[in-house]
C-alpha cells in the first residue's frame, strides 16, 4: 500500500472521530444555546455580553470542528495528495510503504490533530479581542486575565506544534530514525541465523 493511501486512511479516521464526537454533542449544544438565548432577555447589559460571548464560543467551536471533521472525512485522499503529489511520483511505486513512511504519515496525522485542537482557543481569543475588547468600558469585562492567557498559550502551543509536525514531518522522522539505527552487518554477526548455527554444531560433532 502506498504511504499516501495510508495517510488518507488515517486522516479519514481522524475526520470520523471529530464527526461523531461533535455530531453527537449537537443536541446538548442546541439546548444550551436555547437556554442562554431565552434567559438573556432578563439580564443586564453586562451579563448579555458575557452570555453572547459564552454562547458563541461554546456553540461555534463544536460546530466548526464537526464541519472540519466532515471535510476531512470526505476529502482525505485529496489532502494526502498535497503531501505526496502525483507529479513527484516519477517512478511508479515511489511512495511504497516503508517503516519510515509510516512514521511520517503518523507525524502528519498528529500535526493535523494539533491544528484541529487549536481551533477552540483561537476562536475564544478572537472573540475576546474582537467582541469584548471594543465594549470593555460598557461591560467592565477586562480581556486580560487568567482564562485569556490560558487560551493564548494553548493556541500558540497547538498551532506551533501542528504546523511543525505537518510541515516538517520528513525532518522530524529523519531525526528520530537516527537513534537506535541498527547496522545490518553487526546485527547479523550478533545474531547468526539458526540454521547456520545448527549446521556448525553438526559439523563440529
Amino acid at each position, binding site marked *: 500500500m502506498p504511504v499516501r493511501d495510508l495517510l*488518507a486512511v488515517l486522516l479519514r479516521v481522524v475526520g470520523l472521530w471529530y464527526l461523531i464526537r461533535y455530531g453527537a454533542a449537537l443536541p446538548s449544544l442546541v439546548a*444550551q444555546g436555547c*437556554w442562554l438565548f431565552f434567559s438573556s432577555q432578563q439580564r443586564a447589559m453586562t451579563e448579555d455580553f458575557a452570555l453572547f460571548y459564552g454562547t458563541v464560543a461554546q456553540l461555534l467551536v463544536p460546530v466548526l470542528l464537526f464541519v472540519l471533521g466532515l471535510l476531512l472525512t470526505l476529502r482525505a485522499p485529496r489532502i494526502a495528495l498535497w503531501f505526496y503529489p502525483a507529479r513527484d511520483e516519477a517512478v511508479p511505486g515511489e511512495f511504497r510503504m516503508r517503516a519510515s513512511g509510516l512514521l511520517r504519515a503518523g507525524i502528519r496525522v498528529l500535526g493535523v490533530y494539533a491544528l484541529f485542537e487549536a481551533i477552540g482557543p483561537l476562536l475564544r481569543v478572537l472573540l475576546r479581542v474582537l467582541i469584548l475588547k471594543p465594549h470593555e468600558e460598557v461591560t467592565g469585562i477586562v480581556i486580560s486575565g487568567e482564562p485569556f492567557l490560558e487560551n493564548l498559550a494553548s493556541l500558540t502551543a497547538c498551532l506551533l506544534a501542528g504546523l511543525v509536525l505537518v510541515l516538517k514531518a520528513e525532518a522530524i522522522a529523519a531525526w528520530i530514525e537516527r537513534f537506535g539505527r541498527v547496522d545490518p552487518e553487526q546485527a547479523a554477526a550478533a545474531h547468526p541465523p539458526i540454521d547456520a548455527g545448527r549446521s556448525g554444531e553438526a559439523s563440529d560433532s
Partner: protein
Amino acid sequence: MNARHLTIVLARVLGLYFLFEALDWIPRFAAEILPVLVSGETLLVPLGWRVARLASALLMAAAGAGLLLRAGRLEGHLSGPIPVRLEQLEATRHLRAELACALFRILALLWIYWTIGPLVQILEAVHLSGPTAWVDPVCNVALALLRFGLGAWLLVRADRLAHRLEHDGPDRAPPWQPPRPAPEPGAALAS
C-alpha cells in the same frame, strides 16, 4: 490488503470505541438523577439539558453501532465506485478479521486501564457527608465495573467478534459492480 480494507477495519474499531463511550453515560446519568429521586433535591441544570445530553449519548451509541456494523458500506460511499473484486475481498476477509481482533484487544486493554479513573474518584469522595453522599461512590463503582466488564468481555471475545463481523455480520462490504446496461427496446422482441 489495501487502503480500502484498512479503512473498514479502523472504522469498526472507532465504532466500538464510541459505543463503549456512550455506555459510560449510564452511570453518569444515574449520578445526576439519583439525588433528585432520593432526597428531592432540585436539579442543578434544567431538565431540557438532561434530555439533550441523553439524546447526545443515544446519538453517539447509534453512530458507533452504525460504524461498527456498516463500516464496509460507509467505506464504499466514501471511496466512490472503484471496482473491488469479490475474490480480493474474500481473500483479505480473514486478514481484516485478524487485524480488527488485535485492535479490539488494544481497545479492551485501554478500557480496563480506564477503570482507574472512577476508582480514584471514589477515594476522593470519601470525606463527603449527607443523605446523598453515597450516590457518587456507588455510581463510580458502577462505572468502574462497567468499564472493567466491557474491557474483559472484549478481551476474551475479540477474536469471535472480529470474525463474526467480517464473515457473517450484517455488513459484508459488498464490492462495487458496474451498472448493467439498459436493454434495447427491441431486444426482447427480437430474441
